């Protein structure tokens, strides 16, 4: 009896689960998100997810886009490039998302990019800074974060005020770190600054005493430091142990000064940090009202304050995609790709507008984000005098 019933039950179950959840016009618009939610950089990926969820809730509270709600389909790339590629494929093939935001690290984004081209789906890149991302001739890539060259040019106006005469570099041994040393080195040389040592550390390394001993011997006055916040903490602490007296400038915008003060304590005192969002001074951001609202909402949700310097990227990425869907009037990948070129909005970071970058005819989109410098002073994050309006 049971045996005969089983196939019938199975068919019934399949029919039920395969029925559409409602009319097409009412179905939510899906947006794919690929972030490192586990693995060594999990903290950053989760902050971006929190920011993206704020954007989604705000948009839905205003009635959604084109009369439909926005739904995020979030995939974990496990801080691993291979996983980033399969996450992109899964989002496109199984979830049929018309647009994606991702994938944090440059190596993860680069691994996901061929899938975008294969299936013709646009991706807004929210964090990655390797120059090659927009130079590969992939017309489905739209980046709102600055590549290292752009960041270096953004700092150029402050070099004299910082009093940099001879600079050393310490960077993580990845495409990002090496690219950053190149970009900042070129900019500083142009300004007539002497270059001392250029040292590297592996992504998982915890002991940087050899590099610090070497840097100490060059007699420079400023150390440019490029890596994730965990390693910055270790370099600051070990620099203090070895009495390294330098101005320290961190690049890349992932330094989270609030977390550094908490974990490196006095070793963080006096250091400068390039950031793309200043949650301590929302009034100094291009759109002060939006920045303030974002910080308030973040705190209201009980999200950790130190995550704000990453979290805003999630908001801006989703806001950009939704703006493009609105302009396109439909949620089709090709239409969204065309509409992304017309997007012009102000995110938490500032104005977002894409310009062409890369080989002619196959250009990627690159926005020109705002860049800020903050300093740790008396155990607090402060605006350096030269940054005050």
């Amino acid at each position, binding site marked *: 009896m049971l045996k005969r019933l089983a196939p019938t039950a199975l068919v019934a179950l399949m029919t039920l689960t395969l029925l559409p959840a409602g009319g097409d016009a009412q179905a939510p618009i899906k947006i794919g998100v690929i972030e490192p939610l586990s693995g*060594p950089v999990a903290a950053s990926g989760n902050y971006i997810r929190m920011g993206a969820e704020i954007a989604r809730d705000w948009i839905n509270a205003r009635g959604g886009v084109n009369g439909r709600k926005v739904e995020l389909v979030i995939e974990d790339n496990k801080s691993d490039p291979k996983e980033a590629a399969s996450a992109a494929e899964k989002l496109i093939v199984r979830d049929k998302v018309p647009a994606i935001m991702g994938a944090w690290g440059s190596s993860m984004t680069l691994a996901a990019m061929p899938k975008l081209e294969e299936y013709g789906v646009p991706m807004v890149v929210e964090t990655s800074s390797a120059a090659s991302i927009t130079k590969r001739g992939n017309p489905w890539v739209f980046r709102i974060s600055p590549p290292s060259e752009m960041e270096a040019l953004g700092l150029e106006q402050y070099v004299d005020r910082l009093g940099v005469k001879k600079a050393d570099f310490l960077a993580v041994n990845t495409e990002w770190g090496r690219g950053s040393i190149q970009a900042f080195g070129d900019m500083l040389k142009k300004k007539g600054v002497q270059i001392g040592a250029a040292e590297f550390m*592996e992504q*998982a390394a915890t002991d940087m*005493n050899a590099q610090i*001993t070497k840097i100490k011997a060059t007699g420079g006055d400023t150390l440019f430091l490029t890596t994730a916040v965990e390693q910055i903490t*270790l370099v600051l602490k070990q620099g203090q*142990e070895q009495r390294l007296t330098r101005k320290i400038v961190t690049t890349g915008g992932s330094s989270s000064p609030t977390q550094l003060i908490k974990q490196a304590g006095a070793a963080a005192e006096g250091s400068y940090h390039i950031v793309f969002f200043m949650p301590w001074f929302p009034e100094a951001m291009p759109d002060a009202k939006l920045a303030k609202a974002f910080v308030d909402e973040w705190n209201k949700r009980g999200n950790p304050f130190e995550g704000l310097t990453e979290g805003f990227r999630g908001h801006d990425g989703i806001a950009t995609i939704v703006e493009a869907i609105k302009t396109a009037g439909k949620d089709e990948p090709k239409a969204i790709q065309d509409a992304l070129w017309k997007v012009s909005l102000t995110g938490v970071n500032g104005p977002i507008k894409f310009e062409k970058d890369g080989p002619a005819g196959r250009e990627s989109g690159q926005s020109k984000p705002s860049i800020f410098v903050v300093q740790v002073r008396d155990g607090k994050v402060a605006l350096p005098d030269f940054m005050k309006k």
Partner: protein
Amino acid sequence: VEQLLQHLVNGLVLGGTYALLGIGLTLIFGLMSVVNFAHGEFYTLGAYAAFATLALAGLPFFAALVVAIAAGSLLGAICERLLLRPLRGHSIDTIMLVMIGVWIAMQNAELLTWGGVARSIPHPFPTAPLTLGPLSIAPLRMFVVVTAAVIIALAWLGIHTTRLGTAMRATFQDRDTAALMGVPIGRIHTITFAFGSALAAAAGALLGPVFLVYPSMGDLASLKAFSVVILGGLGNLAGATLGGLLLGVAEELGAGYVSSGYRDAVGFVAIILVLMFRPAGLFARAERIG
């Protein structure tokens, strides 16, 4: 010359921490033939135990070390009793797969419990370095090296002078004969695994305040521990200690005088050279166990 001396001091301090990581693994790996991929996770466990005792409960540093050792040996014993004992006599590959499972499970449990954000452990030592002319070393690191030396010495004495240590060595030389002589071999296996895990946890508690504590911190620790064990010869405590110091100094000098981008590569080149000329490890005797 001043720079060279500072590099040597850095290398010895770093090497001391590698040695501490290596000795726990060399016991388990060399004596029990268990390729313990979860070794780094016991290191992480010790670091989080220290974090809980120092930062959350506000107890003194010494208590943190005791709590970490207790947590490490308890979990190590449970792990051996539940997972390894039923598999005794199975092929080394099966056991390796089980240990990979333990590694993944423990790391994700840590992520679930503590979250992915790195934490720092407060410690009672002054941050100003001790200096001798141009050389400087942090008081905390000095303490770590001295404690590590004491722990290594105690472990060596325990294995070479006590009845339990003799029983351990006998079991792993010839299990059947040891059993016939009345050695409770099941209990010896459990104790050895718990002991090795406790050493890893102690290393975690000592090094947690020096570095940062985060769920994936054990991966690098495992890698270094395996390097040290292979360098020093399986099951050889003195070998692991010297291997650790050697690896630390090789990496430090490589980063200082070759290129910091190839720091780890220099360490591994040193290992390859050693294995080419002494395939059983630097300090292996001809009648090595196993």
